[in-house]
């Protein structure tokens, strides 16, 4: 048992570190290091532009999408090299946020299902950040129940005509392309009538409207489709096989290994280390210490769970199911941490940024955290996944499983 790199890994790390040291946008390092959930921004620069420039620079030097094949804009690296890169990229990795969906989900789906010429055309600019992609799955009628989606695709000559509405589309407002899950046959049970496409987000009939979130920010959008035409060669997978195609996408969403999850703990520990309560320093208070200790072991537990997965990668093995706990634990933890940090401030906790930069972070965290517990699989869906795929418990009894989609009730009462 050790935390050491193999000689090969150490060499890769040294090369990556040297390149990052010479090329990263250092002027933003401090701000990026201080960013936390709900608060990643640069005071004097447009973060999207900075992110795109960094991504392009990486791509030009062969450091973009490391695990992708070279012909599609990647580096052909092993999974462990990708993890080492993330570790070395450190705070600059925050700049990759706008590419997470494209690189983590759209790219792999294209790689698995698109025609070769499309892969060669679309994947390299996706890797380099010149083109941004989004994922159009969720709908008002299909959140956790993604297969309940209603956006229609109807064949018309060599094209498909799309009508409907998507929601919770991250980054649709700055995306160039998207992968789109549609219903092509409403007369068969819901999982069987779906088909996947990719499309140009500038196509006529696509309208993007930002959602104002509970936090006040707008990271997501509603996307409306009115008679949008998609050529059949942009179909991904067979007609009616969209559910299986989407599983490839979602597996990628949930299998990101080595990506640090925000728990809020380092921020809280730092805050409590300097905070004075009525009776003395917060960090000397028994109740505070007990809370901190309980969160500390969750944060360290997640960290070392991730290291176990990385070790499996390093040995060329498939990581076990342990990593599936990350988002479930971190989501509610960061919410509780933020609540507690404000509690420690007493009534003044209600005032934004009353106690300077550090305390202001916790309000941002508090307001963003509910989204974390919902996006990419709600806490409840994550528990179902653990129960079914890890513990082998039965799937939910699905009353709509064998019912034609157009016969499933649409209202509760």
């Amino acid at each position: 048992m050790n935390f050491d790199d193999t000689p090969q890994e150490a060499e890769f790390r040294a090369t990556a570190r040297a390149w990052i040291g010479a090329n990263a946008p250092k002027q933003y390092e401090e701000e990026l290091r201080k960013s936390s959930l709900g608060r990643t921004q640069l005071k004097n620069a447009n973060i999207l532009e900075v992110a795109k420039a960094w991504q392009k620079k990486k791509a030009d030097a062969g450091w973009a999408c490391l695990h992708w094949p070279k012909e599609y804009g990647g580096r052909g690296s092993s999974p462990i090299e990708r993890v080492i890169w993330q570790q070395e990229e450190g705070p600059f990795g925050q700049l990759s946020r706008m590419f997470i969906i494209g690189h983590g989900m759209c790219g792999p789906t294209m790689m698995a299902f698109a025609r070769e010429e499309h892969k060669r055309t679309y994947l390299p600019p996706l890797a380099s950040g010149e083109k941004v992609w989004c994922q159009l799955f969720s709908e008002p009628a299909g959140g956790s129940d993604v297969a309940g989606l209603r956006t229609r695709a109807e064949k018309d000559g060599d094209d498909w005509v799309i009508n409907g509405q998507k929601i919770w589309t991250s980054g649709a407002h700055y995306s160039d392309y998207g992968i789109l899950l549609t219903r092509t046959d409403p007369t068969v049970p819901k999982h069987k009538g779906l088909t996947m496409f990719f499309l140009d987000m500038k196509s006529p009939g696509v309208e993007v409207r930002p959602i104002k979130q509970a936090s006040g920010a707008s990271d997501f959008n509603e996307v409306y489709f009115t008679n949008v035409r998609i050529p059949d060669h942009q179909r991904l997978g067979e007609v009616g096989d969209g559910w299986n195609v989407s599983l490839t996408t979602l597996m990628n969403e949930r299998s990101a290994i080595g990506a640090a999850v925000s728990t809020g703990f380092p921020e809280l520990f730092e805050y409590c280390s300097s905070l004075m309560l009525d009776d003395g320093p917060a960090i000397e208070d028994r109740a505070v210490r007990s809370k901190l200790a309980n969160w500390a072991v969750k944060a360290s537990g997640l960290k070392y769970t991730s290291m176990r997965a990385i070790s499996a990668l390093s040995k060329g093995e498939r990581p076990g199911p342990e990593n599936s706990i990350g988002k479930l634990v971190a989501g509610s933890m960061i919410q509780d941490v933020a609540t507690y940090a404000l509690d420690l401030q007493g009534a003044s906790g209600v005032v934004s940024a009353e106690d300077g930069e550090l305390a202001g972070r916790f309000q941002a965290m508090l307001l963003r955290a509910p989204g974390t517990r919902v996006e990419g699989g709600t806490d409840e869906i994550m528990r179902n996944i653990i129960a079914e795929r890890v513990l082998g418990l039965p799937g939910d009894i699905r009353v709509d499983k064998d019912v034609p989609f157009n016969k499933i009730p649409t209202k509760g009462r």
Partner: protein
Amino acid sequence: MNFDFSDDQKQLRDQARKFLAEKCSPKAVRAVLDGKAPYDKELWKGLAEMGFLGVAIPEEFGGAGAGHLELCVIAEEMGRANAPVPFSSTVYLAAEALLIAGSDAQKKKWLPAIAAGEAIGTLALFEGKGNPSPKNVKLTAANGVLNGVKKPVADGTVADFAVVAARTGSSGRDGDISLFLVDLKAGGVEVKSLTNLDPTRGQAEITFRDCKAEPLGATGEGWSILTQVLDRAAVLCAFEQVGGSDRALEMGRDYALDRIAFGRQIGSFQAVKHMLADMYVSATLARSNSYYGAWALSTNASELPEAAAAARISATQAFQHCAKNNIQVHGGMGFTWEFDCHMYYRRANAMALGLGSLSYWEDQLIDRMRKKNAA
């Protein structure tokens, strides 16, 4: 990075699991629970024959000289099997104290006997209510003679010798405490059995009256040695707790698959599934924290104090959580003496106290994190 046990270590774990499945069935645990014997002597003998008692004891002292990672995987299996033997007292506490602070003669006398299953040892630290603290040590040592009362002493009723924490000074500092080795079969010792939460492991009150004792380590070094011993035992106990958590989770999962109510497996209800998923989360966090503790223990890293406290807290929580909800999944049957759930529930809650309670370790963890940050 290789943050995992080696193939050899995993093989040892499988070997221990197989051995314990055969020699330490729930029926064997029940024999001790029901008071038929103070501990499972046959099993103890078997553990010695397998080389498990001396796995981390150097060869020159009669052990296998393997190491602490090997001891960790065995500990996990001991916890999984709920083994009714004085393993933790003897191996994690007494043997570790000897390894850290024993003279050559002391090691030669006791370590081979431990490895051979011929000597049971324990640590006599507590004196009634309270957590590990120098100020709670009232038992005195003067001129090589001990006077005072220790309780509870885990496995004190069956132990042959004890490492005893005694007061040798009154400055109010850690240096007031020294450790002593006492042969419990010699004079000046009175052992009384105490009824306790987990009857598969005895607890005793030991009265020392002008009891002869030899120093273990230098005078005034007692607290520093004890702190190291407790940290090492915390990691090893964490592995027992991890093993126990996994077993309790498995029992709950299996029952949820077998039991039909309302015309379906109860494991198909989300209320039950989610409860089991949460148990898996706790068990996984505990395992990962414990692995880090194992790494720190096996390399004697400067991170050990923090890693040990984190492993202790996380594994204690996980075992309590899994053992408690295992009963809940079982419903009424889980609350019967006949079902095995309560044996894990008892063990989980007794283990949560043995090395000092959660609140003590929470405090320790924060102190140690602050120290690290300050450094």
